[in-house]
């Protein structure tokens, strides 16, 4: 009995792609996306990194496509690549988390924010001080405190993780204090 599942064609499409069939290759990559997105989302849980990991898996498939042998099943080959990309992403995330300090621990959130806003109204001095910051720090401070975006929204807009955005903002606050004559930390 022949296999009627759509997945049954994946191996044949990759075999055709190995022989230079661009249409089969595009068909394969497009067909993989829904299952791949679902798999990555279920494993990572963090929607902001799902597309990054999906793109890494696609790149890995491209780099590894010569290792697929048509006489073997396609799915174990594909899911191994996907699982490894997820493991890499999880490792990277935990490495980042170890490197970055949560904003709360740095006493910047809550009262700290209000203190800064009270002490530093958006005056000419503040505008000048903001202009003196490196681009990444200025952008983080402006998004959070001028445009009043949430950390998640600002991070998505900039294309970094929320943790990275918090660190940029924290460095920006510290530099602002220095520029405006307050003791940095």
């Amino acid at each position, binding site marked *: 009995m022949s296999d009627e599942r759509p997945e049954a064609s994946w191996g044949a499409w990759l075999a055709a*792609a*190995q*022989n*230079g*069939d*661009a*249409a089969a*290759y*595009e068909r394969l*990559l*497009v067909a993989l*996306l829904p299952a791949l997105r679902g798999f990555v989302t279920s494993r990572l849980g963090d929607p902001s*990194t*799902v*597309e*990054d*990991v*999906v*793109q*890494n898996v*696609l*790149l*890995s498939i*491209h*780099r*590894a*496509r*010569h*290792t*697929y*042998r048509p006489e*073997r*099943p396609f*799915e*174990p*080959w*594909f*899911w*191994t*690549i996907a699982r*490894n*990309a997820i493991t*890499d*992403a999880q490792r*990277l995330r935990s490495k980042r988390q170890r490197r970055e300090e949560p904003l709360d621990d740095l006493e910047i959130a809550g009262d700290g924010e209000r203190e800064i806003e009270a002490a530093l109204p958006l005056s000419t001095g503040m505008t000048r001080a903001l202009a003196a910051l490196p681009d990444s720090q200025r952008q983080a401070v402006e998004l959070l405190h001028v445009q009043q975006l949430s950390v998640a929204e600002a991070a*998505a807009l900039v*294309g970094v993780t929320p943790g990275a955005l918090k660190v940029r903002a924290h460095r920006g606050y510290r530099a602002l204090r220095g520029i405006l004559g307050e003791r940095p930390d």
Partner: protein
Amino acid sequence: MGVRKTERLVQELARDPAAVRRIPRLRVVALVLTAGALCLAALVVAALGLRPDVRAGTASASYLGIVAGLGLFSLGGLATALGASVPGRELLARVGLAALAAALAIWMAALFAQLGGGARLGPLDGAWLRTSARCLLIATGVGLLPALALLRFVGSAFAVNPRVAVGVGAAGMVAFGSLSVHLTCSADEILHVASAHLIGPLVMGTLLGLLLGVARRVDPIPRA
């Protein structure tokens, strides 16, 4: 935003449809590497001559256990390396790892049996050092060429676990060299056998594999 980037990436990848050369079947790679390593080992045996008790067919069961363990370790190392080099072949890698564990258990049992049978631990003197260094060098030398060939394959494939593939694979190839040493060396002292026929060559093989793997830039799956 990210979804659009993904769709663009799919189109870009599909625009690069260059035909690729498939890697050979793992069975063929395994056969070629095993045959090559066994030929080199046979050359060493032919040059140095079999141990008298092996030639006479009177070798002890524990001695033959170590020989069998070395054979099992070689094949297990090869299977692990090949299984870890290609996505979707985890089962082969697991079988290889099980063979490695079985080989280690056989060695331990054989060494304890030899100890129980009254074999000497051996003096740790200059002669021991010289003999051990000689055995170690022969084992590593025999395993070097097959290890390089294996690393070349691992580098051209897509190692899911590159460190395991190169480290364990090279140790397996050096174990073929140990096999030739164990069939020719008459020294039976436990410390010599353990350090120069078993543990030493495997440590050398693993280090060799890791160093050559780094030098050949056996690349893992791209990082996020």
